[in-house]
């Protein structure tokens, strides 16, 4: 089942493109020190101090910032934290959604009522304002508070979808048979139900990772992140707060947004492919 999914996944053109883009970003993140010509906080070399607000040149592919940092190097190094925050948040969010969805969907009863109740509340609270409000109360600025806030506010949609899918799967014959055979609930959940909702779990992961990447950039752009960290979001923060627009420095604010968009697109493509694979009606052309 899972093997089939993987096979379909690789043969799907959209998924393949998504995987390729993501792989490139992972490559950039891992080998950042080899790709970037300078350290992200380096503002001079043996020839002397870097020019401030320099335009793109062969020495600085994307120019320099107001502090003389090489923007291209920051873009490359920024991939590390941006990607990390996105994926870690995606994993945490998916884990919460899966746990709550399985618990509520499989056990039903009071557990389900409580989970659904909290879930419905989180669904109607618009997440971005909530994220901003919570983040502005947290006085520690850093990557982990951001991951915490994004995970705390991001699980509701996934839980909703997974729970309702579990509800239908648990009524299917093979689950009933396993129950009659006296299998333990944990075995049923992991061996019978989980493989049947795996595409949904993957979709949840992709969706919440996109949301996390954009959410992180947003928080940092507003100045609610650690502004000395090197990420795409803080690059946009510095560009905005140093009037990159008025200096006509498109090389400063264009690339970070483009990278965020590309990373988001890669997840969106994989998500779309999952949809096509698991829903034959959409696949059939």
């Amino acid at each position, binding site marked *: 089942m899972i093997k089939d999914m993987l096979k379909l996944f690789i043969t799907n053109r959209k998924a393949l493109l998504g995987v390729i883009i993501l792989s490139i970003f992972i490559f950039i993140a891992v080998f950042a020190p080899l790709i970037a010509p300078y350290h992200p906080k380096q503002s001079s070399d043996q020839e002397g101090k870097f020019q401030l607000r320099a335009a793109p040149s062969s020495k600085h592919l994307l120019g320099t910032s107001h502090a003389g940092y090489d923007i291209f190097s920051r873009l490359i190094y920024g991939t590390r934290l941006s990607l990390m925050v996105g994926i870690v948040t995606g994993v945490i969010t998916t884990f919460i959604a899966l746990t709550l969805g399985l618990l509520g969907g499989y056990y039903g009863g009071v557990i389900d009522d409580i989970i659904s109740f909290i879930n419905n*509340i989180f669904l109607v609270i*618009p997440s*971005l*304002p909530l994220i901003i409000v919570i983040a*502005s109360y947290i006085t520690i600025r850093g990557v982990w508070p951001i991951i915490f806030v994004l995970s705390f506010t991001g699980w509701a949609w996934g839980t909703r979808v997974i729970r309702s899918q579990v509800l239908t799967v648990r009524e299917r014959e093979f689950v009933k048979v396993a129950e009659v055979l006296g299998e333990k609930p944990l075995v049923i959940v992991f061996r019978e139900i989980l493989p049947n909702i795996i595409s949904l779990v993957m979709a949840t992961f992709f969706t919440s990772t996109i949301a996390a990447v*954009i959410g992180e950039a*947003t928080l940092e752009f507003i100045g*609610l992140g650690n502004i000395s960290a090197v990420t795409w979001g803080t690059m946009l923060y510095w560009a905005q707060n140093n009037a990159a627009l008025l200096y006509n420095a498109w090389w400063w604010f264009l690339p970070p947004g483009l990278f965020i*968009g590309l990373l988001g697109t890669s997840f969106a493509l994989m998500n779309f492919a999952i949809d096509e694979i698991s829903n034959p009606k*959409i696949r059939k052309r």
Partner: protein
Amino acid sequence: MKYFLRRILWLVFAIFIALTINFMLPRLMPGDPATILIQRLEGLEPAAINAVRNAFGLETDKNIIIQYKDYLIDLLHGDLGISISHYPTPVWNVLRKALPWTIGLMGISTVLSFLFGTLIGITLAWKRKSRISDAVLGLFLFIRSFPYFWFGLILVYFLAFNNPIFPLGGATKVGLMPADGWEYIKSILYHGILPGMTITITSMGYWILTIRNNMINVLAEDYITVAKAKGLSMSRIKNLYAAKNAILPSVSGFAMALGFVIGGSLLTEMVFSYPGVGFMLYQAVQQQDYPLLQAIFLFIILGVLFSNFIADIVIMILDPRVRDGAKK
């Protein structure tokens, strides 16, 4: 009717929960930003210090239930505390000026985005074998992956800064007053185009995707095949048989999407310095105006709850299964 009552009950209940969350949030937060803030704002008058302490729930002499009761009573009287950044103006007076801008900008952009998105989505599903429709779909997947604020920045850069077709920001030309009549309205529309475009374009992808997938599902139904076999005209099948049924989940998805749309428009306002709630939220964050922050958050939740309610009522009118209570 039963459905209607249930929705009203949920609305009332959700509002109550929203008020409670708004009350609890600052009290659950670790640390004590209030004291830091009070220190920073040296020379603040006692009334303002009290406003800060109230917002943070630092009236330690009162127990939490009494605090909660006071909070609800104050709210009923429209008393949201005193703004720190606009001291000594009450929060409500500050917020009141921002609300119409946001409601106008967001309301119009959301409706436009829904209409265009739905029309495009229907066409993409109907012509899903063509290469162009694949490309359009890909384009919107791509646009949807950008941070809203960044998309706004790009529009400002190309359409206001580099080619000064549109204004850089603000909601009207400085100096114009409502008394200027038509000039004033024209200025509002002119200033609204870029932020409106940002919200419309970035949120359109959601509607396109939703309706497209629904539409493809509906097109595989037997009654579509029957309609084709009967020789009905293609436009009749597309609009009356397929689109009409595919649109329902989109309307119910409206409630879910609204949260994203609101998030997007908050950021759009920040980029365009549009004097609405989003820009005010940004300023409140920058200036650590916690009473204002709380009030804005509360209003956003209330806005979402009421829009949800309206979407529920629209579904009730559109969907006979819900209306007659066969389902639920």
